[in-house]
Each structure stands twice: as structure tokens, then as C-alpha cells.
């Protein structure tokens, strides 16, 4: 006799999904007594990887990011040519001479893309770190001191947030003159406010919390309660934001360079490489490869940021 219930169970079993991050979170809510099998060592290691990355795509993303980071460190030394040398025939299509072809000045595209990784990724990391620091600091001050200090800081934050970002960055870059460092400064001007907001809202929340209040009752100074009670609680969310911000920063910086407000020639920078490829659109390799470089870097870091958020902020991905 066929058990109809089993039939349904089988049908449901067939539609069972791939293992997913949510399953992780769920399981801990269930009594441990029912958890089968001791975990093997490989499984333990597996579990060290943020859940979001524990899938083929996640691994690919992590590998891409890792590859780019390695390229950042060793880039120029593994490049087949000097990224600035104009020795090769111009507009050589991708092939044996130059794997990714050469540009309008006869420079090797691959070498330039490899050298550009250091510029784009390095500066994006720098930008994110700076905006994180500045934003968090202002957010801490605003949240902790409340009243007019906080009000002033938050009104200023509003001001920057209400500004059309690109235009503000454009004007800033124009005012400071085109250079990579100035592009970072210009991007910084528009990148810190989110951190200030988030940190402030966390601090405001914590301030209501009893343990900080009790700390203050015990006579701890504000600096101490900031360090002991508040700072540690903001680190997680801020880091998550920052990790998600790296891709954004790369896009913003390459966008500024695309507009001619970032990297100065002949610095190999992906955005300006795409920009100069516009005029030679029928030499497809000139635009496609730098664009793909930007895309892969941004995707990889966004994916990792996503995974980090899932791991550190189970609240968002709560089941």
C-alpha cells in the first residue's frame, strides 16, 4: 500500500532547496539533543567560512577578490610589459603579442589592467577606511553628546546627503584639480555621512540602554563609556557597511576618473581606460577588459560584503 503521506513527503523532498544560510540560523534554535552526527573536521572548517560564501558562487567571488588582492600586491612584477612603455604596435588585437591587446599608444592592456588594480582597489580601500573613520567619529560624537553638538553634526550630514553626489564630487575634484588623491578626497566628502548616521543611531539606541546608563551612574567618564560600552557595539555594523562599501567606492572613483577628474595620465586606471576607449569603440578590447576588471572587483567585494552581513547581522537574514 502506498502511504499518501510518504508520497507527499517525497514530493516535498524533491523540491528541497540547496543548503542555505538560513538553514544555519534555524538549526541553532532547535534542541541540540536532536542534532545528528558529530561534525567532521572538514565540516568544521567549512563552517568557518561565512555562510554567504559557502556556495559555488560565493567561493568564486572570494577567489576573484583574493586574486585581485594578490594582483594588487605583486601586480607590476607579473605584468608581461611595462605598463607605461609605448613599444608595441598600436591597437594590436588580443593575441599572442599582447594577450588583451594594446591601446592607442601601443601599451600592453594586460599590464595596464594589472597595474591598475593597485590604483583602483588600493584607493577604494583607502577611501572606505577614511570615510569609516571620519563618519564613525562624527557619528559617535553626535550620538553621544546629543543636543547641539549632535544636532550640528547631523544637520551637516543632512546637508551633504541632500547634495547631488556626483556633482559635489565633480565640483570638489575640479576645485582641487584632477589627481587620484584629490579624487579620493572628493569621494570622501560624499562617502562619510552614511557611517555617521548609522553609528549615531546605534549610539542613540545604546545610550537608552541600561548598561551604559548604569556605567554613567557609577561615575565613568563619557570617554570611558564610549570606549567600553559603545565603541565595541558599533564595530560590527560599521564593518559590514564598510565591506559593502568597497565596491561602491571603486565605482565612484573609477567614475570620477572616467569623467577625467581622477587619475592623471599616464597612470593606468580602469575608469580612465574605459574613458579613452570610448573614442575607439570599434577596438572592443580597449573598453571591455577594463570594464570587466571593474565589474569583477565590485561584484566580488559586494558578494563578500553581503556574506559578511549575513554572518554578522543574523537579524537581517533572520529566518
Amino acid at each position, binding site marked *: 500500500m502506498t502511504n499518501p503521506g510518504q508520497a507527499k513527503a517525497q514530493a516535498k523532498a524533491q523540491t528541497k532547496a540547496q543548503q542555505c544560510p538560513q538553514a544555519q540560523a534555524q538549526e541553532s534554535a532547535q534542541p541540540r539533543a536532536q542534532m545528528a552526527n558529530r561534525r567532521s573536521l572538514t565540516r568544521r572548517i567549512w563552517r568557518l567560512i561565512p555562510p554567504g560564501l559557502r556556495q559555488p558562487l560565493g567561493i568564486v567571488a572570494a577567489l576573484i577578490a583574493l586574486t585581485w588582492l594578490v594582483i594588487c600586491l605583486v601586480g607590476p612584477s607579473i605584468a608581461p610589459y611595462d605598463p607605461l612603455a609605448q613599444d608595441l604596435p*598600436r591597437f594590436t588585437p588580443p593575441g599572442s603579442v599582447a594577450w588583451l591587446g594594446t591601446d*592607442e599608444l601601443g601599451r600592453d592592456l594586460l599590464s595596464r589592467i594589472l597595474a591598475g588594480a593597485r590604483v583602483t582597489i588600493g584607493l577604494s580601500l583607502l577611501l572606505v577606511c577614511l570615510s569609516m573613520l571620519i563618519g564613525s567619529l562624527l557619528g559617535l560624537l553626535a550620538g553621544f553628546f546629543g543636543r547641539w553638538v549632535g544636532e550640528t553634526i547631523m544637520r551637516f550630514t543632512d546637508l551633504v546627503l541632500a547634495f547631488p553626489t556626483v556633482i559635489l564630487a565633480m565640483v570638489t575634484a*575640479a576645485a582641487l584639480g*584632477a589627481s587620484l588623491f584629490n579624487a579620493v578626497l572628493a569621494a570622501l566628502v560624499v562617502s562619510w555621512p552614511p557611517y555617521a548616521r548609522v553609528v549615531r543611531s546605534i549610539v542613540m539606541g545604546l545610550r537608552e540602554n541600561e548598561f551604559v546608563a548604569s556605567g554613567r551612574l557609577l561615575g565613568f567618564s563619557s570617554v570611558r563609556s564610549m570606549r567600553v560600552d559603545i565603541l565595541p557595539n558599533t564595530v560590527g555594523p560599521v564593518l559590514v557597511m564598510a565591506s559593502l562599501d568597497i565596491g561602491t567606492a571603486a565605482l565612484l572613483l573609477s567614475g570620477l576618473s572616467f569623467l*577625467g577628474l581622477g587619475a592623471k*595620465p599616464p597612470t593606468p586606471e580602469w575608469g580612465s581606460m574605459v574613458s579613452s576607449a*570610448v573614442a575607439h569603440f570599434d577596438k572592443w578590447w580597449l573598453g571591455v577588459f577594463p570594464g570587466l576588471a571593474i565589474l569583477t572587483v565590485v561584484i566580488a567585494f559586494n558578494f563578500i560584503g553581503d556574506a559578511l552581513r549575513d554572518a554578522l547581522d543574523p537579524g537581517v537574514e533572520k529566518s
Partner: protein
Amino acid sequence: MISPKNKMFRLTGALGAAALLLSGCADNGNEDGAAGEPGDGATQIVVDTTFDIKTIDPAREYEPTGQILVKALYDTLLTFADDDTTTVIPDLATFESNSDQTEFTLTMTEGRVFSDGAPITADDAVFSLQRLQGLEGNPSFLLAGVQVEKVDEMTLKLVTDVPSPSLPAVLATPSCGIVNSKLVQENGGSTSATDSAEEFLNETSAGSGPYILEKLDTASEAILVKNDKYNGPQKPTYDTVILRNTEPATQKMNVERGDSQVALGLSGDMVDSLADNVNVESVPSATVVFLLINADSAISEITASSEFVRAVKNGINYDGLLEIAGRGAAQATGLVPSVFLGALGSADALKYDAAAARTAAEASGAVGQKLTLSFPNDIDPTGLNLTTLAERIQSQLSQVGIEVDLAPAPFATEIDAYRDGKEQIGLWYWNPDYMDPANYLAFGPGQSVGLRAGWPEGSNPAIEALVSQGYTTGDLDARRTVFENWGKAMNADSPFVPLLQPGSNVAYQPSVSGVYYNPVWLINVAGLGIA
């Protein structure tokens, strides 16, 4: 013109990529109609260019796009034939001059009328020229020092203090276009700086040219329609001319796809890879791209030394630059471009000599120092990308021991440092104001451009003497000799390094005829015909 109907209908429904992809599966045939033949029998031509335009008031405009439009909207007293840049011919007037080229008598051609039908008289000509002088606008300098007088209804006289052999050529520039004085005055026009007719003239053309203005949007397009009252020699072919503001890369796509008939802004590289179905008129333009090396030791001790100038002049591989510039480009043999009287032959051009350059560079103390090469990066003289050129120059100079940092900046920012003579090394270009070599004399010591290189009066008496001869010598052969001597001396001793004349590339559909490049107005749209 293409008939957009088919494509449009296929696309309307498309909200996103999916629909777009689906729609594309339909066949692509039947898209190209013959140029100039849209369905209703009227002919239309689309000209793509990169807009550089603020106004089309002839007495105010002085940008390339404005020149193209004003040329079509306003006739001038004198002009040049489409395929000739040396001989002035009559248009609204004929002229005679006295022997020392200080007095020019112009007699108005009988019967010519403005687009509203009013006859053109000497009053209109005098008003137009005096207005050009009086507005103190960008092109006002063209008639500086010229006295304009009415003689009778159909005659006027132009008088100058010094011999002005270039004046007829000046009168042929679009800025000297003749406006309907009555109409312009009714709309705020005057011959002083209080004139307020610009707004009117940006919406309505008040001239006698082959076309009248239908619409002008300085950001996107200008539409011209045939002037039915036109009774001059240059009968227009197309009923409508549309001049569109388009990025060079897009221009190339458009002209290859037949969405435009003429593209004016293609670079040499783009032209090299142009599809076979497009014709190209490719000649060296009259634009000279040059390096300025500041002779003011307050700006840089190194660049001020003559050894350094010599090192740069020898250190640049001019052929290597031409490779970058692509089709149509030529080495600038001197500051005067090849189309003008007095241009130098290739034997007199600067030569690449790496060894000499290296020696000179060492002597100048430049080796081991970092200098700055400034240039505008948002402007491409006739399609040449200055950034690419600067990168090539940087690389070439580096091979002879001169290291420069590139300092690109938007034109608007950099122009200030350039004009104030603050650049160590500048990469700039010069478009002729009118078709006469005299406008290159500005590069002389103490002259307007010379000062930008920190080259004051008294720096080089020999050249200064040639400059004043250049302004005043009337006789054609004598002029040629003066300019050739001036050019050679400039090549040898000036702080300017003439680099190249980028190609002027006009790409056009085979259906279009009458495409000629002109150094001042680039292209005469009224001369375009159907092949």
C-alpha cells in the same frame, strides 16, 4: 534619411532588455533610404559635430559651431570659393583697394535681398561691420583699427592707418556677416556695447544667406531651412539642414549606420577604421598644435634656457606623434599651417635628433628634474585627443632624459594659466581667425601669444622686425618671403615647438557631394549637394 518607422514600431513595446532582444529578432532590412529623401519629398541632411557654441549673433560668435551656422545664415561682403582658400571673391559686394592697402572700396551687388525680401544696402553693411567693432565681443578684434564709412546707398569704404593686406580675407569670415540693420535695430541692436539683439538673433536669423534659422538649442541641435528669397550664387540643395551635437564616437556610429550624412568631428584613428560605405575628405587642418616652453625664468629656470628649448625641439619624434594623430595629420613645418601663404616646406621643419636632444637636455640641467606639461583635456582640436598626444610626448621626452608630469585640466581652468603665462610647458593649439598668415604673428615676442610663453618684447629684435613687416607688407611675393623668414626664425629661436596639424576629417555618405574643408568655417553646408 533613414526611415525610422519600422524600427520605431518594433521598439515601442520594449520596456526592457527582454523586449529589446525580442524586437531585434525581426529583420533589419529596409532601413536605409537614400540620403536626403525622406518620404514626403523634402530633402534633409544631418550633420553631426561636437558643439562648441554660445551664440549665433554674427558679431558675437567666435566658436567653430557658430561659424558653420553663421556661414549658412549670413552672407558676407566677400568670400572664398568652396575649394579654394587663397583667393577672395565677391559676394554681397565687390572690392577695390588702393595700392598701399589702406583704403578698400566696396560696391554692393545689385538685387540681393535679405530673407524677409528687403534689399541689401550699404547701410546694412556699415551697420553690421560697425556693430562687430562696437560690441567688444570675441570677434571684434577682426576689424580693430578699421574705419567703416558709408559712401552712398550702394558703396562703403574701409580705411586703415597701416597697410592691411589681410582685410579682404577678414571680411570673408562669417563674423563679418551682413545683418538686416532695420530688423536688428528694431530688436535692440546697436553698434555699441549696449546692443541687446543677441537674444533675438539666437532665435531668428536676420541675414541673406542660403538658409534661415528654424531652431537653435545650443546644447543639442540647430535646424536650418532653405531661404526661399535667396538670390545669390550658392543655391542650397537640401530643404533642411540639421546640425547635431554628438560625441565623436557616436558621430562615427551614426554616419556608418546612415543616421547622419556628414560627421565633422572624427579623429584620424576613427577615420582609419571607418566602414567602406562612408567617404572621407581628409586634409591637414589649419589648426596647429604646439608646445609652449616658458621663457620666463621666474616660472622655471630650466625651461627658460635655450638649451632646453633645443632639447625639446630635437627630442620629439614628430613621426611618432603623427602616428597618434592618424589620417590626414601632417607635421607642422612651422607655426603657419600649410594652407596659408608663407608656410614652410618640409625641409625647414624641426627634425628629431635624439643624440642632440640628450646633449642639450643635459646642458640645460633638465635631467633629473621634474617639469610639468599642462594641457586642456576636455577639448579635442579637430578630433585629436590632447591627452593621448601628451602621453606620447611625455614618453618621447623621457627617452632623451627630460621627465615631465602631465597636468591635464578642463579648458576653462587651464586657459587662465595659459593666458597668464604661468605654464612651464603647455600643449595648445591655434585655429586661424581669418584666412591670412598674419594672425600667426601673435606668436612673436611681446605679442599676445608670445607673452604667454614669457617672451616679452625685446627678446628677439630680428623676429620682432619680421613681425611688423608681416603685418604691413602688401605685395604677395614679398609677404611670402617675410613669412617664410619669420617661420624659420621662429623654428630656430622661439619658445614654441610646432608639432602637427591634425587631420581635418569630414566623413560623409556617398550620397553627399560638395564636401570641402575650410579652415575658418570648417564646412559650407549650403554647398552640400546630392551626388
